[in-house]
Every structure is written in C-alpha cells, then in structure tokens.
C-alpha cells in the first residue's frame, strides 16, 4: 500500500503538535531556575561567589580607632566568624564575634545577591546599634577579589566607603575597609580582618 504524501504530512504535523509543546515546556522549566531574560547577559551569573566563605572561621581583626582624624592608633581583636548559607547561596549571613583589650565586639553582615544587576549588597549591623547601618556597600567579585562601595555620612561629612574581600587561598581570606573623604582620590584603610577556616 502506498501512503499518500499529504497523509504523511498530516501525521508529521500531528506528531509535531504533540511533541513540540513539551519541548517548549521543558525549556521554560529549565529557565525558571535561572531566569535571565531581563538581565544583563554580558555579566557573569555570580550567585555562588560567596560559597567559598560558608563555614566557621578564626578571625583576627585590626581596627583604626578613629578613622579620618589622622590618628594611627589601631586596636586588635580575636574571635570567630560564622558564615551561614541562605537561599542555596544567593544570600548568606556572617556573625562576627571578637574580643580584645578595648572590649567585646559583635557584628552581622547579610550579603544579598541581586539577580537583575548581578551585584551583591553587604548589609551590616553592629550589636550596639540595633539597626542596619545604611546604605549597604554594593559590588562584585573579579578574579577572586571582591570590591564593594557606598557613599555615606561619617562624622557629618559625606564620604566614600570601600570594602575589599580577597581570597588568599582556600583556607584564608582578607577583608579590608577604607574611607575616602576626597571623592575617592585617596583612601584610608581602617579595618583589616584575616580569616582562617576552622571548618566548612
């Protein structure tokens, strides 16, 4: 029996209709987990850029006692940083707890990934204040170095704040905060923390 070509075409059409929507659905399913349609696709998806820091760390902290005053007196602390994973890595929370000759210090930092801008915001609160210090620093990692910036008021002056996170090796990382009161021409470092991994 010879099958007419029109019949073959019909069967193909029916098959296409049956099979095609499933392909579309499957693709949509796949896309929803990393929906990127509205995003700047020239930028890297960096939602896992803080994964390296999840765990418990030993922290050594050096803090400039009076930033932007010309003072060079540093105070030192030792303690721990516990970094908790949230939203499968798209957010995390650091709890810093340190002690030193000038007292006890606790802080928390909630890092949040913005999927549209593909940037991270670092939201800090100290245990004495009881509110988030605003605004957050915002930025991203490039080649193992994260740079985060904001503009805020310090001692009644508008300043720039820069926070740098450097992965030194798998078990060591460094945090450095600096202020600039000349629009970013010069920076004074006022916070250096070195973390050593205790457990993942």
């Amino acid at each position, binding site marked *: 029996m010879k099958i007419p070509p029109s019949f073959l075409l019909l069967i193909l059409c029916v098959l296409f209709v049956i099979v095609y929507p499933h392909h579309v659905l499957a693709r949509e399913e796949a896309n929803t987990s990393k929906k990127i349609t509205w995003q700047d696709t020239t930028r890297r998806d960096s939602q896992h850029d803080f994964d390296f820091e999840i765990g418990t760390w030993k922290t050594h902290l050096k803090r400039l006692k009076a930033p932007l005053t010309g003072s060079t007196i540093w105070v030192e602390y030792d303690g721990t940083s516990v970094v908790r994973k*949230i939203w499968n890595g798209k957010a995390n929370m650091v709890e810093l*707890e340190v002690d030193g000759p000038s007292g006890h210090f606790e802080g928390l930092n*909630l890092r949040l990934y*913005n999927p549209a801008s593909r940037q991270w915001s670092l939201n800090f609160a100290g245990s004495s204040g*009881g509110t988030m210090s605003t605004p957050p620093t915002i930025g991203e990692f490039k080649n193992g170095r994260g740079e985060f910036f904001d503009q805020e008021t310090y001692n009644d002056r508008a300043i720039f704040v820069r926070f740098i996170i450097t992965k030194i090796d798998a078990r060591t990382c460094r945090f450095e905060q600096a202020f600039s009161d000349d629009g970013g021409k010069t920076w004074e470092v006022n916070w250096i923390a070195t973390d050593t991994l205790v457990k993942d």
Partner: protein
Amino acid sequence: MKNIKHFSTMLALAVLLTLCASVTHAQPVKTGLLKDDMINARITATGDLEITPSATSSRRDFDYLAGKWNMHNKRLKSRLSGATEWIEYESTDENVGAILNGIGNMDTFRTTYNTQGVKSYEGITLRLFNPQTKLWSLYWVDSNTGTMDPPVVGSFQGNVGFFYCKDTFRDKPILVMFKWDKTDKDNPVWSQAFSPDNGVTWEMNMTNVSHRIK
C-alpha cells in the same frame, strides 16, 4: 462496567469530601478599609511617623519565633482596590534564634507560590532590637530582588506587636503595618495592612498563621 461505576462514585465522593474540607477550612477574613487605631505610633502635626516603644518592650519579645514552622498564608488578590478575593498558599519558615549578642533574630521563608512567576520564592526577615530606643526594626528581603526593604518599626504591647513604616504604593504615600499576635505561642498570627489615609483606615492584604513543627 460495575467497577467503573463504583470507581466514579468513589471519585465523586472524594471530590465532594475535599470540597467540604476546603470550605470548612477557609475562615472568613475581613476585607476592605477598616478603622483601626495605631498603637504606640502616631502621625505628628508635621506629618512625621512617630513611633514610641511600649513600657515592656524587650529584646526577648521575638524569642517565641525560634524553631521551624509550617504556615498557611492568605494574600488579598489586589491591594487598595476593593478586592475581596484571597489567594491561599502554604509556606515553611525557619528561625535560627537569637543572633548578634541577643539583640536580633533571623528567619528564612520559603513557598512555591510566587507573584513573579518564578518557581520558588524565598524571603529573609531580619529583626533587630535597638537597646537605646527599645524599638524593633523588622527588615524584609525578597529573593526576587535580593534587596532589603526599609524596616517596619515598633514593639509588643502585651501579646500583640505593632510595627509601622511609611512607604509608597502605586506612587501614592501609604503607611504599612505589621501585626504579630503571639497569644498562642505555637500558632502565632502575622498580618500586613496598608493605610492610604495616614493611619485612619487600614486594609489588611496579607496574613498567615504559623504552626510550630515540634
């Protein structure tokens, strides 16, 4: 043939039972703009939102939230438009307990319901108690945007906490209120309401009951 008949009778019965269950389960929620006094908060003559702490406000006021929860949520289909239809969905929540030297706590919220159409939806609430002002600030973070909303601020008056902030909705100024009722510590009730008239009337647009997972 008899089997099929039997099966369809059973199916019909099952459908009927499910329907009955959902009807009895659905409790009526008041909709629309209702008069409600602001508690420990007021709008000053100059239009500022002034929030004062209750006499008993304490850093321990959210201790009851530590643990894991199943939640039943209701969300008004549209806001400040006279809507009366609620969308209901389930969620889970985990609160890690006290953080930051006992002045804060944090929880993560997860549901499959998402207004943005993406599969899952998660949130973070960070609550911080200011020991100087004795006021709580409740910060909400949405996984769709990854940004932190300005906080609602307030305190508990007895078993009910009232938290407020100014915001905008469709480019118009509104007041936002969160209410936490912890009368039943294992089944606390949360709700959110918007006021379009500086706190005279309020429309509740979201509420949930948390059930402690023991």
